[in-house]
């Protein structure tokens, strides 16, 4: 199959960007979206042009490195799929495909389709960890966790931090990402000692960089792991509850 690509090209964050058009001819239907881009890049390389920069690592939908806006769909037209797992059979011969980087004030374009997602790291640094010692695997397994709680936590833990939620949100909000991390840790017994401090710190760091949730639900449909906006409701409630907690009484310093 032959497709035409309109790709966002931008040499670095300081320069102006713009679209460039490329032809990808004789692409196999079984090729992945990135294999198709790799082919285009090989040709660009051969002709001495700068290849298109895009992020990818595992290419099996588990690391969260990849992600571009494809024809106005974060991660492309297939739901519940990261860009690296998208295949060319989702497109038709002769299609023109528009490829853009994630757009949000907090995400600077580093080059072409690569954006700097370090504000996500800042949110994790604010509290996305557990600092109590839960022991080696043996001891950890001795902590009994109700199965439903483990399942709910696991659903949230599916978040790979790709930032499609921010890219999808008309408000540039990172609530789905932050809420998934908060729910992931806050639902488990190991997460309890730091629970409310974590929620407040992560929420307020998130708000320093991103917009607010207007309950559109777009993030949920864009998420390659189909994480439900229920976690956002959970985070809202935890944040409000944290305002009334006596942190000292819980052994959490103020």
């Amino acid at each position, binding site marked *: 199959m032959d497709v035409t690509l*309109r790709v*966002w090209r931008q040499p670095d964050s300081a320069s102006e960007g713009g*679209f460039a058009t490329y032809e990808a001819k004789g692409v196999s239907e079984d090729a992945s979206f990135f294999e198709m881009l790799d082919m285009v890049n090989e040709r660009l390389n051969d002709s001495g042009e700068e290849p298109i920069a895009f992020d990818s690592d595992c290419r099996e939908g588990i690391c969260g490195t990849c992600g571009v*806006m494809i*024809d*106005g*769909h974060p991660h492309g*037209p297939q*739901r519940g799929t990261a860009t690296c797992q998208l295949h060319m059979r989702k497109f038709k011969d002769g299609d023109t495909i*528009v490829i*853009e980087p994630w*757009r*949000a*004030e*907090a*995400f*600077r374009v*580093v080059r072409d389709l690569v954006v*700097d997602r*370090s*504000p996500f*790291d*800042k949110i994790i640094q604010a509290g996305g960890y557990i600092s109590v010692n839960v022991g080696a695997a043996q001891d950890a397994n001795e902590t009994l966790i109700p199965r439903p709680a483990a399942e709910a936590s696991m659903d949230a833990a599916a978040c790979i931090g790709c930032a499609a939620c921010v890219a999808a949100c*008309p*408000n*540039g*909000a990172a609530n789905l990402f932050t809420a998934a991390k908060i729910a992931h840790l806050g639902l488990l017994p190991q997460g309890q000692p730091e629970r409310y401090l974590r929620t407040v710190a992560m*929420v*307020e760091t998130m*708000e*320093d*960089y*991103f*917009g*607010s*949730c*207007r*309950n*559109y*639900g*777009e993030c*949920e*449909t*864009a998420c390659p792991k189909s994480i439900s*906006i*229920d976690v*956002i*409701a*959970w*985070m*809202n*409630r*935890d*944040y*409000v509850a944290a*305002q009334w907690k006596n942190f000292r009484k819980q052994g959490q310093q103020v």
Partner: protein
Amino acid sequence: MTTTTRRLDVNRRSGWRSWLGSFFTSDIGMKWMMALTGIGLLAYVLVHMIGNLKIYLGAEDLDHYAEALRTLLYPIVPETGVLWMFRFGLLAMFIIHMWSAIVLALRNRRARGTIRYTAKRQYLAANYANRTMLWGGVIIFLFLVYHIADLTLGMTNPDFVEGAVYHNVITSFQVWWVALIYVVAQIALAFHVYHGAWSVFQSLGMSNPRYDEWRRWMAVVFALALLIGNSSIPIAVQFGLLQVSG
């Protein structure tokens, strides 16, 4: 690779990050206030609509109802005392509701960034109702100003008679474009309420698989009840079903 070290001024809160200060200036806190005032306003529009429907019982019933509102709890409180309490309460709720909406809209505009997507965004979940919350709200606000000028103060109705509620409503709605304004405003309100009634649960953190399905239907029923109940009155007047002599 360089990392972002600058804190974006997207949502910079002013220095007083004390207890309630930081809560009420946070996005989630503001959504919370918006949801709580939204519930208050929803309850009000529902009660208001039920009261309005008294118009179908005739002039005496409606005017008597209006009089009862003015003398509620009299003589325990001064005449119109309770009425004014309600008015101040409503005003406060409106101000908090709109203030949070405006602050959040400005923050969101900054957070979204200046460069937009070139390919048309293919929305899957966002719909007409939730994307028009802000401008729908503005329309409702403008309507409210007109509505108070029309039926409370009688400034736009040449036939206005203080206290004769039934008479005032009918003479006002007999003008076709006034009736149209009311119906259009009710449509805007229905959209706003449809998203709002569903959304409050999310903002207050009360999403629950046990009643999530039910939330959608409740929002539909609520919005439709308001739309049908309220706009039936100007329509009935236009078709001559309600008349001054009646």
